[in-house]
């Protein structure tokens, strides 16, 4: 066997070993949680009204947040991907800032902007809208922390579309809106679906910004992650915390897989090599 072929075989083995280590590290804690609770405890915990409320609130607020992110973020990402203008880099950096911002800082920032004494507080109060300690505040916090995950994917997806297809659509009689809807979105769909999955996952797990901006009121702002922390803080609530965690893991995994499959995520297919 040649030296070159030997080297290829070794690299394949090392890459596979790296994958095994990665999987063990990522899957071990999830496996531990799943095996740490019995089905009976799981059912009992879900029978608790506060736990059910928390899960339902998480589903409701994250769904709303994702709808807002997709509805506003998709055209915004398209604009950023297709246009070249002064200040574009600054806007891209600002959009990505919440990705690296500690969640607690995000909560403080939201309070500083939209809290009663915040920058836009009087305007929001004037409109008769209440955000702090309200479900609407939870949605706002989720949109703030999760939107960069979707926007990054969407911008990259739109930027990767062959400009010739956009031009051709225009010469075939389609205006900018029809071109966006009929050409750009279908072309970007797999990446947009990945973006939705990532943003949804981030929103489901959101904790710090929600706690600081909206608080942890049962049935109003206490989402599943906040409920898990509340049960964990209770000396007798560890089992309930684990049961809630299991449900959150299952829901997150199901959402992630469903969104990716519906969008035809190419990463799920592999290259078949």
């Amino acid at each position, binding site marked *: 066997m040649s030296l070159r072929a030997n080297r290829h075989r070794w690299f394949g083995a090392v890459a596979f070993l790296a994958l095994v280590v990665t999987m063990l590290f990522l899957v071990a804690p999830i496996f531990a949680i799943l095996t740490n609770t019995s089905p009976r405890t799981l059912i009992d915990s879900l029978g608790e009204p506060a736990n059910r409320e928390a899960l339902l609130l998480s589903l409701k607020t994250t769904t709303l947040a994702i709808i807002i992110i997709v509805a506003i973020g998709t055209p915004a990402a398209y604009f950023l991907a297709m246009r070249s203008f002064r200040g574009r880099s600054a806007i891209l950096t600002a959009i990505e800032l919440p990705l690296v911002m500690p969640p607690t800082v995000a909560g403080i920032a939201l309070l500083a902007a939209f809290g009663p004494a915040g920058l836009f507080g009087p305007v929001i109060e004037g409109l008769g809208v209440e955000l702090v300690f309200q479900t609407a505040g939870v949605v706002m916090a989720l949109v703030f922390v999760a939107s960069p995950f979707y926007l990054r994917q969407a911008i990259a997806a739109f930027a990767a579309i*062959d400009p*010739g*297809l956009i*031009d*051709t*659509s*225009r*010469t*075939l*009689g*389609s*205006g900018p809106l029809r071109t966006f809807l*009929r*050409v750009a979105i*279908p*072309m970007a769909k797999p990446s947009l679906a990945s973006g939705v999955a990532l943003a949804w996952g981030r929103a489901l797990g959101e904790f710090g910004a929600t706690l600081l901006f909206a608080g942890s009121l049962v049935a109003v702002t206490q989402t599943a992650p906040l409920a898990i922390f509340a049960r964990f803080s209770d000396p007798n609530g560890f089992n309930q915390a684990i049961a809630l965690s299991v449900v959150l893991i299952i829901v997150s995994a199901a959402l992630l897989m469903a969104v990716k499959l519906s969008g035809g995520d190419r990463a799920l297919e592999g290259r078949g090599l």
Partner: protein
Amino acid sequence: MTEPSGLRISVHVSRRDFELEVDLELQPGGRLALVGPSGAGKTTILRTVAGLVRPESGVIDLAGQTVFDSERRIDVPPEDRRCGYVPQDYSLFPNMSVLDNVGFGMRKVKAAERRRRSVDLLGQLGIGGLSAVRPSDLSGGERQRVALARALATEPALFLLDEPLSALDSASREQAIPVIEHALAISRVPALIVTHSRQEAERLADSTVIIDRGKVSETRDHDDGRRWNRKPGSVSIHRVVRKLRD
């Protein structure tokens, strides 16, 4: 103003690396080939007529309508110019079937009628059996026919063909030339055809403008081979200038 279905273009386009001034007229049914090396500005002329490149100044009249006039601030968007633009790589929509590609430009046409006309056009261009196929499964020649059918489906006032044969091998080119001629005959509208081959220009067009380093070095009417022929009803080229800044 030019006659209905003709083209008159007199524009100045300024880009980072070159400036282009073009002044030409194409009468109804005329076919003009723009021949020259890469970077001469041939494609820019097509894209300017299609509305994809905005000139700094000038006028473009197409089919009796002014589609661009810098002084009168007229700039008709590409979707309203009725140009059957076939780009060099054909730009077929990869997420659509051949049938949907052809039907894409038939706006405000009912689905059944759109389907009937698309099938009819595909049949006329000899690819009637490929309706359900995706562009990724087509050969170069088949892609070209789909792109031609798609442009024809919009009932354009002008055909713009950018290097229509460059993506094909030599055998496919021979087969493609009669298809292009047939497509142009069906449309009965004038055509601007960009190519880098004089032979292809002579086979596809009535007249040729040869651009060398941004300047017109020669024009030829293919009917009688005379140079600088400006007889009524044929192409009238006044000036095509490209200045490299550096």
